[in-house]
């Protein structure tokens, strides 16, 4: 089996587990919607323009639900010691890592695919023009968040306090992603030319590459038993 075949297999395993149990996606979605609704009450959007606060609110929702997704992603492996089987399997650990990143990106992507249109309705905002750029920004930044998040979640879920430790480590490390995501999204919403925010897009791409490369090298140490 090829390396990327294994990556796809690991991600497919997570998706199949989810399709059978349905314990994750729905609760993530409801949680993310709840974050949106809370902000909808916290700020008066008849006065504040959605373009100024909206991207930040959306990314707070994505990042919060992303942390839940990451914790879940490794907690299911700890249940019934499934992780033992994976560690014993003759596969490259980094392929397992990339598969986990892929499944996390897909879970977060599902939440984003619902939340972005929903926020457009909730806050009376049109997102249809420049949808391609919007998707590019979402994908690039979600990958970056999942890349570092998966590495850290593999570590923190081995402790008893992952719920606290994962965000504690991940949020500061993911600051560039949060800033890039919010800035890029607000530029896109405001309909500004690509050249105005190209540096942010390149930063997200660089962040993705650097930390996927670093995590591929480091993941083995995170998971050793």
């Amino acid at each position: 089996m090829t390396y990327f075949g294994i990556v796809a297999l690991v991600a497919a395993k997570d998706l199949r587990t989810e399709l059978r149990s349905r314990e994750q996606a729905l609760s993530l979605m409801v949680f993310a919607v709840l974050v949106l609704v809370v902000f909808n009450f916290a700020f008066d959007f008849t006065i504040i323009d959605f373009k100024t606060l909206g991207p930040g609110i959306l990314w707070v929702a994505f990042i919060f639900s992303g942390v839940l997704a990451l914790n879940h992603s490794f907690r299911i492996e700890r249940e019934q010691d499934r992780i033992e089987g994976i560690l014993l399997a003759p596969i490259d650990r980094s392929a397992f890592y990339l598969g986990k990143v892929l499944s996390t990106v897909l879970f977060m992507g599902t939440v984003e695919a619902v939340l972005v249109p929903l926020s457009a309705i909730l806050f009376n905002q049109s997102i249809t023009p420049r949808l391609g750029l919007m998707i590019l920004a979402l994908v690039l930044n979600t990958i970056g968040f999942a890349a570092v998040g998966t590495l850290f979640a593999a570590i923190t879920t081995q402790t008893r306090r992952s719920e606290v430790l994962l965000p504690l480590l991940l949020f500061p490390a993911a600051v560039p992603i949060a800033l890039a995501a919010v800035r890029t999204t607000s530029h896109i919403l405001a309909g500004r030319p690509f050249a105005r925010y190209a540096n942010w897009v390149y930063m997200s791409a660089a962040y993705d590459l650097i930390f996927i490369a670093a995590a591929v090298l480091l993941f083995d140490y995170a998971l050793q038993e």
Partner: protein
Amino acid sequence: MRAMLPRILLALTALAVPVSLHMVFLVAPTEQKMGVVQRIFYYHVPSAFMAFLGVGVCAIMSALYLWRKERRFDIMAHAAAELGVLFCTIVLITGPIWARPIWGVWWTGEVRLTSTLILWLIYVGYLLLRENADNREQAARWGAVVAIVGALDIPIIYKSVEWWRGLHPKVLKISGGGGLDPVMERTLLFCTITFLLLFATLFLERVRLGLQEEEIETLEHAIGRRPATAAPGTGPGGIGS
């Protein structure tokens, strides 16, 4: 010679600290516009250097640990991270004390302040993670991974915060070289050397302590006072003989 090094460093630090106090408060001239509060800068800037030194040493020792798997590298990485957090805390305390009278605010979203705070948060997270490990080997491996990711992240964090604040005027211009009075410059240099000595002294002491802790643990294990899988914090004497 090797055994003498910590004592020599301690003696040099003990000499350098009073001399640096003398230079900061009696030799260096009072800054014209900022007044006496500017003198905190002789502690603030060297502390920032030491914070970066701690983070750098921690990352290098972490990489060495993952490569060679020798315990002493991890003990050094841990010691460097603790010192990094210590000096970073001093930076974050002295900064606002200076900023309040000069800028009129305790805190702003300025790039250096913000990225220093994020740096501090990453390494506090590093220390907390180590506390939650089941054993030394696990703490070492996890710590090394986080330290390396953190070190790679710092330049990106700095750049991103800089771009984020891009529209704001640059308020901070302290280490702007050239404009600094030669006496002030010499004082700063001397303070940096003093802090370097202090750092080295604390580092060696902390590493020595770490090695001793480990030796005690090994010995206790050998005489059966400690079960092989003891969690940190269970302490010696948890299970009597």
